[in-house]
């Protein structure tokens, strides 16, 4: 293991794994519909990704004790994976809780210095009041006008928003300041799949990245997962009159109030958890 002595922020496992690459950033801590984790895992497996570096957590996370989930201690983990043949660098991490600006710059520092990154993608999810039978769309945010113009004809839906920034937006802004072009991808997911999985949205995202980066990705497994989930939700519609009616209303393009959303969330969650 080599330590980058210039700033001592990284554990470098492999030197210069890439010459010119695209960086794909996923956040574990706000992984709605498990889109980000599935995208990153799929790419690591399909493209033969290997761990190349870690961004050390000290100074970026509040260590006020140990967090545990499902009886397991959780440690912040920020890791780079390189897929040399595909020219892809993946970064998978919890979102920092301290010194975010330095953390985000450090991601790009590593990418530029060690892997020659030329563009950035961040993977997120946008829960919406849509039915699971609706074809998924990808909403997108760009940090350079030229990039936006280039993608106008593509299947990306430009987003308009004014409000609190997500870490991905902050990263996109930091990248723009450094002259690095980037896109935040926000695949739409039915809100009731946010606490579970949405294989169709994962497939949509991977399809886009596959075309854009000319990657050979076999997405058949996701078709199977999506089919299985569709069946489970159809069963729910048949078994549970109330949830069924709400799902039908979404399919008809109706909206649901907060109480109805909570009810549908709960019923879908219980059904999918039971089946899994």
């Amino acid at each position, binding site marked *: 293991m080599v330590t980058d002595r210039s700033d001592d922020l990284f554990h470098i496992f492999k030197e210069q794994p890439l010459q010119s690459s695209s960086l794909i950033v996923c956040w574990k801590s706000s992984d709605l519909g498990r889109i980000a984790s599935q995208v990153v895992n799929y790419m690591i497996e399909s493209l033969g990704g290997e761990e190349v570096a870690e961004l050390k957590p000290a100074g970026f996370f509040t260590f006020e004790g140990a967090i545990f989930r499902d009886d397991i201690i959780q440690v912040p983990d920020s890791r780079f994976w390189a897929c040399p043949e595909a020219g892809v660098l993946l970064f998978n991490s919890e979102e920092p809780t301290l010194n975010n600006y330095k953390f985000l710059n450090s991601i790009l520092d590593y990418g530029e210095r060690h892997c020659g990154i030329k563009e950035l993608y961040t993977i997120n999810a946008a829960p919406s009041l849509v039915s699971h039978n609706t074809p998924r769309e990808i909403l997108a945010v760009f940090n350079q006008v030229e990039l936006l113009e280039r993608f106008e004809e593509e299947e990306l839906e430009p987003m308009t928003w004014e409000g*609190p920034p997500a870490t991905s937006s902050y990263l996109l*802004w930091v990248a723009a300041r450094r002259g690095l072009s980037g896109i935040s991808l926000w695949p739409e997911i039915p809100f009731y799949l946010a606490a579970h999985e949405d294989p169709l949205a994962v497939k949509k995202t991977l399809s886009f990245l596959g075309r854009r980066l000319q990657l050979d990705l076999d997405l058949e497994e996701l078709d199977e997962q999506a089919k299985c989930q569709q069946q489970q939700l159809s069963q729910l519609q048949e078994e549970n009159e109330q949830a069924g009616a709400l799902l039908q209303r979404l399919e008809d393009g109706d909206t649901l109030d907060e109480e109805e959303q909570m009810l549908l969330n709960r019923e879908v969650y219980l059904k999918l958890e039971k089946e899994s």
Partner: protein
Amino acid sequence: MSVVMYREPQLENPEMLCSWPGIGNIGLIAVDTLRGQLKARELGQIEPWDYFEPHKVFIQKGMLEELWFPRSRFFYHERGEKDLLFFTGEEQPGGREKVYAYGEKAYRMAENVVEVARKHGCRRIYTSGACVSMTHHQVKPRVVAVTSSEKLNRELKRYPNLVTMSELGEGGGEGVITGMNGLMLAVAKKKGLEAVCLMGEIPDWLARVPFPYTKASKSVLEVFGSIFGLDTRPGLLDRQSAEVDRVIESFYEKFPEEVKEIYDQRKTEAKPVPISEKEAEWMKENLDEFLKSLTDEQEKGDDNGDRPI
């Protein structure tokens, strides 16, 4: 971590006025009003990203247009003699979960501000904030001073409506000036500058209210006017005070007679009696409810979601 200056004016014997948000935004409003009246020119800023997280993103038709951070800006006003430097911070550094600055970032920001002051030849720095006291909201707020030396205390006492903390008679002349408005004084003194904090009085029970207490800002503004020989125009502050007074009076009318009786003694007594525990409890419970009703009303008009994108 850097300070960016847009120009380098040659200032004559300048003094610096600083302020950050705090209780009732008393100091910030006073300093900012004076800055506005003098049409002070922007001099520079402390880059925000090492101190603050962005509050808002603006995305328009797919394009990330802007990320909004709290600003920490310097201004200057040339008068030919005793020029003025201003520093106003839109948020105190140290973390969004805390209102007041704390820790290393706060200290570093204070050092940055003092360095800019020194670079321009400043020998004295003023900060301004709130002094929570047993005053009455219908009484004109006094301005309470804490300084870095006895000599400065003597100098300041000649200004009307100004008292030192020990003259106020609360806390036995001891206490803490929380946040940046206090920390700046310590850093300035450590770096050999004269330091003055001018605090506008606010009644204890109003210290938690979420709106500006402009009546006290006006008192601070008047003292700044006297110190610098400036004709300050409090017109806007008067209008804002009237609006705030209306809200305060509407709660004051709800006071039970026994609470009102004790509280009203503050208008005349030289040494006011603190309200009893029972009455303080009544005030706390009812004020919370009153403030909640104000907040609810405000939220009704706000249809911005809070999901980060």
